[in-house]
Each structure stands twice: as structure tokens, then as C-alpha cells.
């Protein structure tokens, strides 16, 4: 059984939703306070959605310097798993734990809506419970989610297979209409080179119960839990 830690910055709000989703999936979780440096021995750190420090300056910029992030960095160095969702993805990019940056949505508006994601790799701890090319229905909710990497960096990402999720249409094709924020190459989520750190703009924790519209997000959490259990063995 994997232990999950959910980081709480003062402006974080999806910590509750993450804890709920994990509970639905049958996994306990602890909260990790932004000013602490102790990860309480968790196997996976979740950097949840929200507005960490009001998202002033740039989303995630101030949070990337919080004391807890030093501990998260060490956790990453040790090969520990990290899932950054929405604001958490922004924090990971700002902290340099993932490449690239997240810019204001191309439409210059906040977007809260369901999107369809295509799973690009199934050999990561986050996606091994999915079929290759599987489509997940998960909501986005953000104003600054336009993933950007310069051409060289993008080529490197593609070559190393670091793109895990892309926005696609119902048929699974890349389509600007299906891309809610104008991300380059339809990128919705990427992993680091080792495949241990995932940043994604969509909110899997909002898609864990059919009454809320979809349970596809559970796959991400289940995947982590099973991978963690595997590692422990």
C-alpha cells in the first residue's frame, strides 16, 4: 500500500478533492504543510490545484521556493513519485523539476470544462493501468495552462517520450478545437526523464466518481498506488 502526501500551500484548494479521490480509491493520505520540510515518509507527493500564493507574479512561481519544495526535490532525487496537478504542474515547472512553462490560456480566459486526453505512454507509474492510446475524460480548470517549450526542448521531450497526455477530440485526434488553452503539440501532461514526476493540467481528482461525470481519473491514482506497492516489494 502506497502512502500519499498532499502538499498544502495557503492558496491550495484541491487538497480536499485529492484526499477525497484517494479515499474513493481506497488510499489514505496525509497533508504536507508548505512550511514544513518533512514528507512524513510518503511514497508519492501530490502537488494539488489551487492558487498556491494567489498565483501572483506567475502561477506557481512563489510556491516553487517554499520550504516543502526542498524536500520534494530530495524526494525526486531519490526516485520518489510526484504528481503535480494544475497549479502543481505550474509549481513543478517553476521549480525546474519539469521542463517548460505554463502560459496564460490562448483565449486569455479561464476555462473550466471536461476535456479528452490521449494516453501516450503506458510504461510509467502514472499510466500503466491504461491501454496505449486510451482516452480519458477529465476536467480542466485553469487560466494559465498553455504549455510552452521552445522547439529544441519540445523535440527533446518528444524524442524521449516525455509527453504523457495530449488534448484530443472524441475520436482521439489532435484538434485545436479540443485543446482548451493552446498548448504546444496539444500537451496536457509531461513526465521527467526518469518518468517519476508527472505534471498535468487536467484534474484527475475531479473524475473519480460517475455521479460527477467520469471515473477515468482513478486510473492515475490507482496506477501510482500499484506502482508504489510494486516498488515496495
Amino acid at each position: 500500500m502506497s502512502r500519499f502526501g498532499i502538499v498544502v500551500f495557503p492558496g491550495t484548494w484541491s487538497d480536499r478533492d485529492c484526499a477525497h479521490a484517494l479515499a474513493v480509491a481506497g488510499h489514505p493520505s496525509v497533508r504536507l504543510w508548505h512550511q514544513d520540510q518533512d514528507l512524513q515518509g510518503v511514497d508519492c507527493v501530490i502537488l494539488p490545484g489551487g492558487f498556491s500564493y494567489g498565483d501572483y507574479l506567475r502561477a506557481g512561481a512563489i510556491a516553487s521556493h517554499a520550504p516543502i519544495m526542498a524536500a520534494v526535490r530530495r524526494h525526486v532525487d531519490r526516485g520518489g513519485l510526484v504528481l503535480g496537478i494544475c497549479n502543481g504542474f505550474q509549481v513543478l515547472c517553476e521549480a525546474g523539476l519539469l521542463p517548460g512553462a505554463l502560459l496564460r490560456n490562448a483565449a486569455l480566459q479561464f476555462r473550466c470544462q471536461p476535456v479528452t486526453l490521449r494516453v501516450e505512454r503506458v510504461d510509467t507509474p502514472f499510466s500503466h493501468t491504461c491501454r496505449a492510446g486510451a482516452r480519458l475524460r477529465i476536467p480542466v480548470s485553469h487560466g494559465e495552462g498553455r504549455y510552452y517549450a521552445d522547439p529544441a526542448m519540445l523535440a527533446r521531450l518528444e524524442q524521449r517520450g516525455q509527453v504523457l497526455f495530449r488534448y484530443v477530440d472524441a475520436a482521439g485526434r489532435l484538434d485545436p478545437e479540443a485543446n482548451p488553452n493552446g498548448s504546444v503539440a496539444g500537451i496536457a501532461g509531461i513526465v521527467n526523464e526518469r518518468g517519476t514526476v508527472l505534471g498535468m493540467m487536467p484534474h484527475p481528482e475531479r473524475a473519480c466518481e460517475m455521479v460527477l461525470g467520469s471515473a477515468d481519473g482513478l486510473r492515475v491514482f490507482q496506477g501510482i498506488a500499484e506502482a508504489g506497492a510494486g516498488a515496495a516489494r
Partner: protein
Amino acid sequence: MALLGRGPNRLELGMLGALWSEHCSYKTSRALLRTLPTTGPAVLQGPGENAGVVDLGHGLACCFKIESHNHPSAVEPVQGAATGVGGILRDIFAMGARPVALLDAIRFGDPRDPQQRHRFQRVVEGIGWYGNCIGVPTVGGETVFDAGYAQNCIVDAMCVGLVEPAQMLRARAQGVGNPVLLVGADTGRDGIHGATFASAQFDADAAARRPAVQVGNPFLEKCLLEACQELLGHPAVVALQDCGAAGLTSSCAEMAHRGGVGLELDVARVRRRERGMTPEEVMLSESQERMVLVLEQGGEAAVEAVFHRWGLHGDVIGRVIAEPRLRIRDGLEPVADLDLAVLVDGSPERHPPAAPPLGLAARLAEDPLAGAPVWSPLEAWRRLLASPNCGETRGIWRQYDHMVGNDTLAGPGGDAAVLRLRGRLDALALTVDGGHRSGRLDPRRGAAIAVAEAARNLSAVGAVPLALTNCLNLGDPDRPEGMWQLIEVVAGVGDAARALGIPVVSGNVSLYNDTLGQSIPPTPVVGMVGRLPEAGRRVGAGFIAAGDRIALLGPLGAELGGSELQRLARGTVAGPAPALDLALEGRVQALVREAIAQGLVRSAHDCALGGLAMALAEACLLGGLGAAVDLPGLAGAAPGERLGQLFGETQSRLLVSCAPAAAAALERLWTVGRVPGRWLGIVGGGAIAIGEVATIELAEARALWEGALAG
């Protein structure tokens, strides 16, 4: 002056002026508001506190209120709207409740006018920004465009919270010697005289009198909210109050007055953002994101530690005293000393003369479509689908996070939002609705319709209305017509609330929505909370299966006075307001709730703007299914009568669909319930067809509907 026993000084005058403003003292509306029904078995807290509270049973209560931010939003749409949301959130968490939902009611002039469009978009941006940032979902609202709001927009925000009754906080100062803590933002010169500003017309001097606009800080508010939640049940917390209009003056005065004690404050201890602020500026500043607490003596350190953890600082700025007075010092120097009874309750009630507008009788007697172009039913239908008032609102609410919290079972886009209650079978249903446009002809009827329609929206998802909050947006009461509207609107809210058994537990009055002598139409906005006995039984507004039978519950009718069709065709309001039989309304609503509870209907949608034909189109568009229906006598009716039957806004009606197998049971139910009901047709096909009279392809209808609000 006689009340003071001496002449007030400048600071005291400023404080009295702010608290005696219409905005704070309700001096014009107070007597009228007393006539509203405010009690009921579920009411735990009626008007008089920061927000009303109703019991949901099993140790949970729902706390809610609506408030206007019209004037600030006219001056600065983004920040005005944002701080409106911030203000209503504080009202809710000041009661000890955790905010779980926001709703907004907004009104502007014609969106084809770039200026109006700009204001509308900026207001939506401001509402979204604050709610999204703080992490409270915006689950519903209402957007109306009408020339009557071109000069004065309406921006009303409603917040709903949940609280365990035992944890409920009240804003009552107690315990002589207890310290008063001010926490949150530093105090600046922003928003000074905001309350008096909101109590006056817009005119040439308004710009000069305009208070410095407040810039919202949802991040700070989030920290305040979390800290206040953490303090729930803390033995050191005696009272909690937000700092709203008239700032420290009103929060402190009201908290002391409710508790039957006094307060002594030292303005020198108030942390400031700017140098050189006078005691008057400190006492009247409306800087946002501040809360005032009364603590048990000795509890300061424990409470401040909680705030500190959230990055906030609190300062003890005064103490509770026995004498019922508000005493202000600046360091050692006394600067004000006012009797709280005078300050809070002393404003003389005003009863300005009231009279209906001239020529009203003649306008009521007009033919609603007199002089209007003769549109075919299909032409009228197309125009309605393309009207920004009937069109799809997704472009608005996809900018609002309506899902955060993982409890939104039904968000914006239906008749009422539905929020689940964790660990329970039942759910909360929420809606806001403004009055019918015919309220310009008959404000009393229009207000009653607002209440009836809100209740109908809740009933349409299967929820029983529990209580309501209201925001009465009106023009200058010093004009006889304005005062008449105020009297009539309050009477109308009362009529419907009493008849439908829905108590009024909180509210807000926004008068002086005028520019250069031009008033807004009377705009009573009703926010309502209902309880859905079984969340799993809720239905949506859209049809769900081809072959299902479509029925109309409620009367046929053809009333076009004040309708959207009339607005499009004539640009004016004339003719009689739609009738409202509140007894019938109650029966129709009870019937639809019963049908939903028994699982007989698969969709339900109220007939509102655009009448029966628009309700049918929406049910089709939301469900992605066509329909074929007919109305008795439609084909043979005269052209005007025909438009009335299709697009008239006759009240007390819902459009439902049911599986063929459930039809007989549904019919029995409406017979027993003494509700007029009739079968209209069948769900299915690629078009929406009304007899021989009008047929529109679903794809065409969708294009019009989805494009109605697009830039």
C-alpha cells in the same frame, strides 16, 4: 443632535452618516421589510445576522445570503464584481460556515453595444477570478440584457455555506474587558464612504465623490477563511464579524449593539497601508479582506497563532465595555463617543411619498404586440433562439470553476444547481432568479413571479424549497415612482413567500440605481435553497430518450405582456403582466416534485423566458434530441394569438418528459393533484416540430442558440 446631548464632531458625523446611509440603515425599506415572513420550522437564523441559516437535519445547516455590488461594478467592473464576491463570502464564513457555492445575477444593456459587452465581460472576469482563486465553485446564476440596465448594471452575488448548527457563530460582542482583534488586510484609504456612495444616484459629481476603488485579494481571503474555519469551536472566540460597508464603524457598532454591550477602540492600533490617515479615514475605510473578532481575555495568543500560521496578522484594537457606546480613541486622545442605540438604530425611518407612474393604466391596457412587425412563428422562434437572453450561457460559466469541491452534481446550465451532501442521500438545490420584465408594469406581480420562478426552478430538479434570500435592486426612492416600486416589490416577495411557504432569511436592498434621473427597472433578485430528498432521483432539463412522451404541467396561455418576444419585437413593455395564481403555482410545483420523487418523469424544465416554444427548444438542445408536439387550437388561431400560445410567458408551467410506460401514472398524478396537464407530443427526430406551425432543424436551432452570446 438631541439624541447625542451635544453637537457631534466631524468623526462622529462621518460615522453617523455612514451608518445612517440607506445602505447600512435601511431607513427607507426597514418598515416594509418587517412585513416579510421570516420564520419557519427549519429557520435557525433569520434576517439580522450576517446571513440566514436553515436546518438540513442530521447536524447540518445551510447558511446563505445575496448581496449587490452594482455601484462599484459600474465604476470598475472587474474589481467591483470581484470584491462583491469577496464580501458575500465573508458574510458566510463569519457565521462559521464553510462556503460551498457561489451564484451570480448580472444585468447589462444590449451586448451588441461594445461598451456594454465590455462591461459584461469584465464583470464575468471579476466574478470568476475571485471565486476561482478562493476555490468555491460558482454553480449557477442569471444573465439578463435589457436597455434598462445600460446606465446601471446589476451585479448581485450569492454565497451558500454549510455549518454544523453547534458551530454556528454569531456576531455578538460579549464580556466586558474582552479584547477586539482586527485581522486581515492593512487598512487603507480605499473605499472610504462606499456606503454613502452606494446610497446616492450617479450624476456629474459622482466621479468626484467616488471612493478609491478596492482591489480584491482572494488569496488573502482564502487565508482568512481557512483560519476562521480552524477557529471554529475554539473556546477563545466570542464573536466573528466581517468588515463590509462602512468598515470598522459598522462592524464594531453592530457587533456591540447585538450583544448589548459597548466597545472602546484605539485607531492608533489599526495597522495601516498609508501614512497620515485620520481617525475618520481609519474608521470608515472599506478596505477589503478584514475580519473583526471578540476574544475571551487571555485567548489572544492562541487565536493569533492560528492566524499567524496562515500568514495573517491580528492586532488588538480595543475592548468590550459595559456602557452601550462606541468610544474611539487615537492613542490617549478620545476622538468619538457615540450611543450605540443612536448609531445603529437611530436613523429616522423615512416614508417618502409613493405613486405609480403616470400613464400606467394606459400601458397596461395596450395590446402587447401593438405596432410590432408581423413575424411568422418560425421567424419569432429563430429570433428568440438568437436572443442573448435565451441563448446558451456556457460562454459565461465555463470561465467559472463550477466543479471544485467535488460535490457539483449539476452545475450551471440547467434549472437549478445540485450539490451533494457528503455521506447523505439528500442534496442541496440552488438557484437565483430576477423578476419578470412585466415587473415594470406591475412590480408586485413581477416580484412574486421572481419568487415563484425560483421555487419552480428548484422543483424542476425535484427539490423542496426551504428558504430564500433576496436582493431588491431599485431606483431612487425619493421619486414617488421609485418609492411605489419599492413598496410593491416588497409586497410581491411577501405574497409569494407566504403563499408558497418559503421564509425570507436574509437579503439586501440596493436603492439609487439611477443615472441622471433614469432608474433601472425594478429588479428583485431571489436566491433560493432547496432540499432534494434523494440526490439520485434528480432530473435535468434536457430530454433523454427518443420515444418519451412530452407533457405540459400547468395552464395553456398566451400572455405576451413583458415577454422576451415583446422586447425583441417592440423594444418596450406594455400590456397586462402575466397572471400568477399562487395556489395553482404551489400545486404544479408539488406535482412535479412528486412525479420526480416517484421516478415518473425523466426530465423537467420550467417555462420561463420565451415561453413554451423556448422551453421545448431548450429541452431538445440540452438533450440533443428533436421533438414533435402540437397544441390544441394552435393551427386555427389568429397570428397574434398563435405567437402568444407559443412564446407567451404564462406562469406556473413545466415541460416534462416520461417513458411511455409511466404516462398513465403521471396522468393520474396530475388529475389527483388538480393540476391542468396535457400531452403535447413525443421526443425524437432531427427537428423540433410544433404541429404544422413551425419546424426547425435541431442543428439550426443549436447554431442560433450557441451563437446568441458569442462575440
